[in-house]
């Protein structure tokens, strides 16, 4: 939260003990932080001119949220032709950043990677873990200090759940039933973190919700409803 003390022009964001101080006369410096991998980060002061910050506080809030959060920042599924099949954003990215920076730029980088290389790409200070399954690339963006091997497992976890749900899932399934793919993802990840390690549980939860939808459909087409419609 951006709080502004009355007397001086100091903006303060506290997150992971990073304090962003704005003072007159400080030169704009790129974010510099000491000991970023420490669990309890020491106070880090970064000077940004007040005028710059007040022009666009949202940008800086977003920027630092992304920088300092350890989480999955976004999930991206793209086809070999670069078509987007699913995107989920857990960190703040503006619409423009989403299309230009991420989808186009990152998509380009990943689609150009050769086949036998490792599944990790350094991108704009972050790390993107990707894995190709048939014609689709599953990508998840994490931090430099995060466990990329685990994220590979998370991707595989997601793919296996999709596979069980659709029965040998293929790209067409994800195109025509994109909303269902999202429902499944929402049972797997929340706020950029893993939500459930049991595939069985995820399947059960999805089945229960699907059945609620079925029941509602049946009720809608039940006799009483038809009568109600006819007499409208």
């Amino acid at each position, binding site marked *: *939260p951006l709080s502004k003390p009355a007397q001086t022009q100091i903006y303060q964001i506290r*997150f*992971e*003990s990073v304090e962003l101080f704005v003072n007159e006369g400080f030169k704009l410096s790129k974010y510099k932080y000491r000991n970023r*991998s*420490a*669990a*309890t*980060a020491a106070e880090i002061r970064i000077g940004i001119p007040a005028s710059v910050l007040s022009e666009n506080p*949202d940008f800086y809030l977003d920027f630092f*949220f992304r920088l300092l959060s350890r989480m999955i920042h976004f999930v991206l599924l793209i086809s070999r032709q670069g078509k*987007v*099949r*699913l*995107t*989920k954003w*857990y960190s*703040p*990215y*503006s*619409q423009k950043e989403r*299309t230009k920076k991420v989808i186009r730029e990152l998509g380009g980088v990943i689609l150009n990677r050769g086949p*036998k*290389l*490792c*599944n*990790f*790409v*350094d991108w704009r200070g972050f790390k993107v873990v990707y894995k190709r399954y048939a014609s689709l690339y599953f990508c998840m963006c994490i931090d430099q200090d995060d*466990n*990329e*091997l*685990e994220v*590979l*497992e*998370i991707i595989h*976890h997601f793919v296996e759940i999709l596979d069980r749900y659709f029965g040998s899932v293929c790209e067409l399934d994800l*195109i*025509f039933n*994109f*909303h269902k793919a*999202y*429902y499944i993802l*929402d049972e797997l990840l*929340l*706020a950029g*973190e*893993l*939500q*459930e*390690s*049991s595939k*069985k*549980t995820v399947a059960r*939860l999805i089945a*229960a*919700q699907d059945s*609620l*939808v079925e029941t*509602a459909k049946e009720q809608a087409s039940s006799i009483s409803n038809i009568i109600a419609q006819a007499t409208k």
Partner: protein
Amino acid sequence: MNPFSSGTRLRDMIRAIRSCKTAAEERAVVRKECAAIRAAISENDQDYRHRNLAKLMFIHMLGYPTHFGQMECLKLIASSGFPEKRIGYLGLMLLLDERQEVLMLVTNSLKQDLNHSNQYIIGLALCALGNICSAEMARDLAPEVERLLQFRDPNIRKKAALCSIRIIKKVPDLAENFINPAASLLREKHHGVLITGVQLCTDLCKVSSEALEYFREKCTEGLVKTLKDMANSPYAPEYDIAGITDPFLHIRLLKLLRILGQGDADASDCMNDILAQVATKIESNKNAGNAILYECVGTIMSIEDNGGLRVLAINILGRFLSNRDNNIRYVALNMLMKAITVDAQAVQRHRATILECVKDSDASIRKKALDLVYLLVNESNVKPLTKELIESLEASDQEFKGVLTAKICSLVEKFSPEKIWYIDQMLKVLSEAGNFVKDEVWHALIVVISNASDLHGYSVRALYRAFQTSTEQETLVRVAVWCIGEYGDMLVNNVGMLDIEEPITVTESDAVDALEVSIKRLNSDLTTKAMALIALLKLSSRFPSCSE
């Protein structure tokens, strides 16, 4: 029947769009659909609201603007039926981001849904809140989420735990409220609740030092026990991945223990046994096992020193380094870079393998290995390391040569024990990759040569020899040309021969020819030609017989 009435099924619209052959065709189809949907929206159509939102979401994913549909999400969320809410919340998360003011209007619906009698609806609300809420919404609804941390259904508790993470990130002041409920989650048995509860505690520690102290004091032992139980657990098919029970939970526990043990000797002591057990017992033939080992190594490196554990950790990294799997090697190099600050000696022992990685076929690995080597260089190992790096230079591709050259030059300049060694190395680099050498670097070389009067003869002879074989390297030509101009007489008369040198016969006209070649060669740019001309001028005064 008109296929583009508001009655088009989602499936049919998708088919229609996919069958378009050109971008213009697609735009036309989308435009028609959007028009129909807009009309339905302005008529407040109830029947097709659900389907229209689904269509809008698909259109949004294609990259078209769909903000006119945002209010529809709100209307669906406000409906009473589960299917409507489900698609409404999905639409909300897809079409909006937290910067839209429209989002605030959902706060009331969210509040009601967080109190709904249908737990799946509570789940939908928690999901939306946890993924896109703004700071104000977080503040407003935090008490509801806090309450749900103790809900009867574990699936709700786990969603509430992750939702709480977003709340404390957006409003760190609220962190204190979540400490106690989070601690109770750690005592549960349900895996989903455990992994989310552990994650919540981890993030609480980052935001609040009060939380860190609390968990450290009250929960470390319990967490160690939970990890022990996981490590010793019998086969559990529901959570088994590659023979390990719930690797995700293993990893999250290790992450939290790392934070608790860091900077605290008692907490670190408490976890030594289990860390040793994990490090030695987990099988590393599958990715899941390696992911756990990787996390374990990270934890060992961060907590207070226990000599035995550190050695164990570095050994694991050493094994990772020789693994055939690219991912494992990449990860090992990454971790070793951090391990240097903790135990540089141990990392030095793996120098040979790291140097192998500099020649790897994977660009990501080469780069990481090079960064690591750079950090490993010191006065005592600079000579063998530079030798290896220069060898890699010969085998590397154009893209990598630039980076590698820069690093070698930097190292050589920083750590050079003697001038003659520096000159030798620079010569090799210039011969192999002169075109990648920056101006400041070869200028510096010239300065060093001119300041080393005892090496003038050596330098000019060595450069002359190199020049014979590597004329495609522009900077080599320039340095050679400068030297020949300055010290041509030493070249011709073998002045200042060192013990290690072999005599070389170069006549005055040979020297002049060399300069002529430099001017005439096709690739020579203006700088080179100019330098060669100046050199010729210098020689003309020293070699009067060759004046023509």
